[in-house]
Each structure stands twice: as structure tokens, then as C-alpha cells.
């Protein structure tokens, strides 16, 4: 079905090739995984197949590509879209219309199908993917997982032979990933060819036929899912491939730092547009610990954290730092949040200025220390927006470290990171542990929680459902939340 022969590609803006000497042959109906560390070339591979190279991204391309006998390099993206469908990472920016039904019809309309046929197809798609209740809704009101489902439906409507997916699970919570799994099973049953570039492997154990490990633009080796499951932690650090079986994943982590400082919330009520969105009766947190905040997408985790940091003012209730009440204004000045979308919080022209922002009387020595710690010392003069995603994230964390605030919050710091970079981030966050600092991390990342978190807070529908330490009993509760059973294979 797909033949890639001796393909090399270099983007115009860089000197090093992103792909060199790739040779792959994929049969019809196969499901293939591309894995490896960030920057290894997985995404570039996906762009070869859907026509974005050479149409969207300029560069020099050598070699031959054939999809079902046709060479995509010589075709327009429109022609390629008849046989190859692409689902991207970010559910928010993939959809073109505002209404779900129109979105599903979008591809068919572009291809000039007769209106009656489009309508029938839309109904069929909704039935096949079990999403009738998602029809005719405003896309902006859907959750991330529902949006991704609509994105899939939109591609499914065109019935391509090949599906190309670029990290489709990045922005999804566990429950949405299970639905994604179900869709992929359906596609496999229909005999579609699937190519996935992914970090998370746990939901793919029974779907993927072959996995290709890539490094610096080359395919290094081919594995089966069983072989990937048997990797040691050290091998995972080398290759960046995440564990396939979460049930048997363990990792040692440091104990919390003893501290007497407490942060407590009493009778917190926060309402948005006349609806109570956050309701917390009582909660106590200790410094010197890293607390994970988990919950479904839309459960209220961001609201919880925003109220905690004082960004949103709670209408009722109080927050106490060591028995002394702190107003929202004071909380803003003592807290720091590293946001999920790093681009929103980089304001300066150089990495150095970015880290120094907002700090009065900075110490040069401290600055140098932080730059080394974050492994960004040689990027000192660069503009933050020119850096890679991982580098930007390290700059943002560097700024968090440097400012020395009391309450630190990280919003999904590891989504889309491979295993080794996730561990690196985990170690960095761990270094921040101190008796004077409260650390909170909103995350879906099970491996991250295990490696570095001391306690877990579960938010559901704006209320605190659970607040526990991650000891043996806590670990069982966590596993239950993620439906990870030691006996069952996910």
C-alpha cells in the first residue's frame, strides 16, 4: 500500500536533514507505529504521506514515495485527500466550521459530492462512530475528546484508505483515549491502513502490528508491541518510548520533604455566569510535596488552580497560608503557573530576559545556576519563540524556578513528551521541592505521577472528590481512577 524508498528530506530553514535514507513498506490493512524522541522525524514522516511536504513545508526531498501506486509528491493535497486522511494533534484548531454536522460534511462538500449523498454519509458516520448525540452541536461547547471524535468523523466521511495520525492522544484524557482506541479498532476491522506517530503506547498494544523506532531522521529498528512492552526503564530512557503496560510500571521516587507550612482552603465557592463551578469545603496541602491534580477534562482542574493562585477571585470562602488568610491579590504575587500552551507566556526577546522578568534585584549567579540546571545556557540570547517545544518548556520552568515563588503550579507539563524528556522534567520539578514551596501539577500522565508526585487530588464536577497520599493504598486508588488493573491487560 505504502512504499517509501530511500527518502531524505531537509527543511529549508535547517541544515541537518530531518529524514535520511528511509525505507519502509507498509501493507494494506496494517497499523504501524512510529516512535522515538522528540525531533526524531516522526512528524516529518507523516507529512510525507498527506502532501504537506512539499506543499506546506518547503525543503529538499529525495527518494520515491508511492501510496497505492500514486506518488503524492506530484499530486495536489486535494487529490491526496481522497486516499489519505489526517487527524492532527490539537482538537481546538482542526475544525473549520462552528457546527458539528457541518464539520463532518466539510470534506465531502470540498470534494463536490451531491448534497443528498453528503447528508446520508453524515448520518452513516454518526451511526458508525456512535456519536448521534454529538450531531448538530456547537463545537465550542464540546470537550477535547468530543472535538477529536468530530475531527475523526470528518475524515471518516471521506472514507480514505490510509489514516495518518500525528500524536492524536496528546490533548486527551484517559477516557477520551479509550474512545480513540475504539475508533482505531473499528478502522482496523474495516481493513484501513493506519500510520501513527505517537509517544503514548499503552492504548496501542493490541492495535499496532509493527513499530519503527526512529532517531535523528533514520529508522533504527523495528519492534513488535510485545518487544516494546519488555523494555527496561533504562532502554526507555535511551529511546524515549513510553511503557506499554502501565499495570506493571514502577519507578522509585523520593520522599516528600518534611515541612510545617500548610495551605488550606475553607468553604471555597466560585461561580461563573451564575453557575457554581467550584465548590470545596475543606482541603489542606503541605509544603515540600508535589501534589498531582487529576480529573476528566472539564472537571474543573484549571478552575481549581486558578482560584488557588488568585487569578480568579472566589466569591466565598478563604484560603490560609500557615493560618494567615491570603487575599487573591497576595496569592497572585506569591504564586507562579507554568501553562500548558507555552506560547502564551513567553513575552521577552531573549531567554535571559524571559527568566529575569518580574524579578526585582536579580542575582547574576543565581541566573547562571538556573540556566545550567535547565540545560539552556547556550540559548541565552535566543528569542524564546525560535526554540523547540521542549526548550520553550524548559525556559518556562526556568522562570518558575528563578522567581522563587511559594506556590508553583504546572499545567500538563509533560503532554506530548517522550519518556526521557518526561523523566527529565520530572527530575527538574523534583529539584524544586523545598520546605517553603507548594508544588501542584495538573496532569494526565500516569508515569509522571508515579515518578515524582507525593499526593493526589481528584477533582470531579468542581468538587474535591479525593485527596490522598501516594502510598500503597493511594496507588491502588490511582490505578482505579485510570482503570489500570494489575490482572487485566488494558
Amino acid at each position: 500500500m505504502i512504499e517509501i524508498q530511500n527518502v531524505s528530506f531537509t527543511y529549508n530553514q535547517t541544515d541537518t536533514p530531518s529524514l535520511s535514507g528511509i525505507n519502509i513498506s507498509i501493507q494494506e490493512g496494517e497499523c504501524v507505529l512510529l516512535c522515538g524522541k522528540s525531533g526524531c522525524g516522526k512528524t516529518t514522516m507523516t507529512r510525507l504521506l498527506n502532501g504537506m511536504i512539499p506543499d506546506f513545508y518547503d525543503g529538499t526531498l529525495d527518494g520515491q514515495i508511492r501510496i497505492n501506486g500514486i506518488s503524492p509528491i506530484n499530486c495536489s493535497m486535494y487529490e491526496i485527500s481522497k486516499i489519505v486522511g489526517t487527524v492532527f494533534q490539537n482538537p481546538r484548531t482542526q475544525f473549520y466550521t462552528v457546527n458539528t454536522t457541518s464539520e463532518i460534511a466539510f470534506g465531502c462538500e470540498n470534494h463536490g459530492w451531491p448534497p443528498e449523498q453528503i447528508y446520508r454519509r453524515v448520518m452513516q458516520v454518526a451511526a458508525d462512530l456512535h456519536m448521534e448525540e454529538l450531531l448538530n452541536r456547537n463545537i465550542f461547547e464540546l470537550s477535547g475528546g468530543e472535538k477529536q471524535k468530530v475531527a475523526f468523523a470528518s475524515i471518516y466521511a471521506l472514507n480514505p484508505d490510509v489514516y495518518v495520525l500525528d500524536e492524536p492522544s496528546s490533548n486527551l484524557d484517559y477516557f477520551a483515549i479509550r474512545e480513540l482506541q475504539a475508533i482505531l479498532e473499528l478502522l482496523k476491522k474495516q481493513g484501513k491502513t493506519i500510520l501513527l506517530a505517537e509517544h503514548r503506547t499503552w492504548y496501542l498494544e493490541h492495535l499496532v502490528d509493527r513499530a519503527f523506532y526512529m532517531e535523528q531522521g533514520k529508522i533504527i529498528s523495528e519492534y513488535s508491541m510485545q518487544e516494546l512492552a519488555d523494555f527496561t526503564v533504562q532502554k526507555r530512557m535511551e529511546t524515549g518510548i513510553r511503557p506499554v503496560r502501565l499495570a506493571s510500571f514502577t519507578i522509585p521516587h523520593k520522599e516528600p520533604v518534611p515541612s510545617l507550612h500548610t495551605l488550606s482552603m475553607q468553604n471555597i465557592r466560585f461561580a461563573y455566569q451564575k453557575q457554581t463551578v467550584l465548590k470545596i469545603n475543606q482541603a489542606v496541602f503541605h509544603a515540600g510535596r508535589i501534589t498531582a491534580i487529576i480529573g476528566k477534562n472539564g472537571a474543573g482542574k484549571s478552575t481549581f488552580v486558578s482560584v488557588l493562585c488568585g487569578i480568579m477571585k472566589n466569591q466565598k470562602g478563604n484560603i490560609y497560608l500557615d493560618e494567615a488568610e491570603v487575599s487573591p491579590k497576595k496569592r497572585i504575587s506569591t504564586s507562579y503557573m507554568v501553562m500548558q500552551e507555552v506560547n502564551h507566556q513567553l513575552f521577552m526577546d531573549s531567554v535571559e530576559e524571559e527568566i529575569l522578568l518580574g524579578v526585582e534585584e536579580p542575582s547574576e549567579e543565581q541566573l547562571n545556576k538556573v540556566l545550567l540546571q535547565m540545560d539552556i545556557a547556550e540559548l541565552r540570547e535566543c528569542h524564546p519563540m525560535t526554540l523547540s517545544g521542549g526548550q520553550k518548556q524548559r525556559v518556562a520552568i526556568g522562570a518558575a524556578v528563578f522567581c522563587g515563588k511559594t506556590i508553583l503550579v504546572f499545567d500538563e507539563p509533560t503532554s506530548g513528551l517522550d519518556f526521557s524528556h518526561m523523566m527529565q522534567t520530572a527530575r527538574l520539578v523534583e529539584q524544586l521541592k523545598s520546605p517553603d514551596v507548594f508544588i501542584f501539577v495538573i496532569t494526565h500522565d500516569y508515569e509522571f505521577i508515579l515518578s515524582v508526585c507525593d499526593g493526589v487530588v481528584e477533582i470531579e464536577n468542581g468538587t474535591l472528590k479525593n485527596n490522598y497520599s501516594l502510598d500503597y493504598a493511594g496507588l491502588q486508588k490511582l490505578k482505579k481512577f485510570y482503570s489500570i488493573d494489575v490482572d487485566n491487560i488494558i
Partner: protein
Amino acid sequence: MSNTKNTVYQPKNKTNGLLFDPRTKILLLVELDILLFLGRSLAYETSVFLFCVLILFVGGQRKTALKCVGIFLFFVLTEQLIQPYLTNSFASFVHFIVVVVRKVLPAFMLAKWLVATTEVSAFVAAMWKCRFPQNAIVTTSVIFRCFPTLSEEWGAIKTAMKMRGIEFNLRSMVTKPSETVVRILVPLFISALNISDELAAAALCRGLDNPGTHTCMTLIHFRWYDIAFLLLVTAALAVICVLNIKGYSL
């Protein structure tokens, strides 16, 4: 859903009433707006107003129609009652407001009706039918779809600014305007460019650049009442224009 399986997709009628073609609605709005200003007597104004009420009534917004009739009556009454007191400047002011708002009420009503009873997909279908250039249709569809996304981005940037201690208020605008504006615009522009790229990638991968015909799932066409209303209003407009030119005062 099953009984509509074999029918064609019609733009959803958001309320009960006649389903006008979106092009009819736009034409009616423009023509009636012009008609409003071609005559000044209360009788003329009231008749135009009542016609607009009729449109709302058959077009599916009965409650709003009745509410507007109520408001209109209230304003007319207030105007009459306040007549003897016009030497008082406050009363004068109230009179002015009441008259002005009453005059634009029909335009406002029709506009609200247009927006409330028409789906975005119907507007897009109308644009295709009117053979607008494809790029114009793409740009216009993207504009409306982008508003919520851009305001989310803006909200996130504002939050980040609060966090980092960057101020965006009147004081910062006056004391260091250049810096403040740059701080906002750079992340905002970069967000906008990223959104634009991702949107374009997803759209092109679904065939946006097809040089052939694009179709529309939503079907719109003129029905008898579209034509009836349009003929009526256009004829009225023509007559009133002629009368105005001839110098009659209405």
C-alpha cells in the same frame, strides 16, 4: 432521525414559522431599512413598523414581535404625554431619546430576527449560490469561526501577563505605551499565525484547494412566500421613492 434519512438537509429552523431563504431576509432588511427613512409622519412610521412585526410573526419570532409592539406603544404614549413639558430640558432629552429609539426599533428588530433565525451554514450556502469568489467565502467563514478561539487565546495571554506581573491598564498604556503594546501583540500575533497554519493544514487535508466545484450540504431556495414578500416590499420601495422625488411629504 430515521424518518429524515432520505431527505435532503435543510437549514434547521430554529423556531416555528416560515423558513425564509437567507438572501430574502437580507434583501428585506436592507429595503425596509431604507423605507424607514423615506417618510416622517407617525402614520407612515407605524405602517412600516407593523409590516416588520408581520414578518417577525410569520418568520417565527412571535413573542419578540409582541414585545416590540408593546415597546412601540409605550414610546408613542410617552412622546404624547411629554409634549406639554418640552420647555424643561430633561423632558426634552427624554423626548429626543424616545423618538430616536422608536425610529430605529424596526431596523433593530429585523436585524435581530435575521441573526436569530439563520444558521451559519445557510449563510455560507447563500454565498456559494451567489457565486462569490471562493477565497472570499473561505475568509468570511474563517472570520466567524475564529472569534471564540481568539478570545480564548487572549484570555490565556492576559492570565499569563497577570502571573508574570505585566500590567495592561490605562497607567501602563500612558507611562510605557510602546512596551505594553508590544508585549500584547507579539504573543497574540504568534498565536494567530499558529491558529491560521493549523486551520489551513486541517482544511487543505480535506480538499479545500479543489479547483473544481464545491457543493453545499445545506440547500436553500426561494419559495412562494420569499417571492411574495420581496415583490411587495420592492414595489412599496419604488412607489415611496417616486413619491419622495415628486416632493410629497410622508
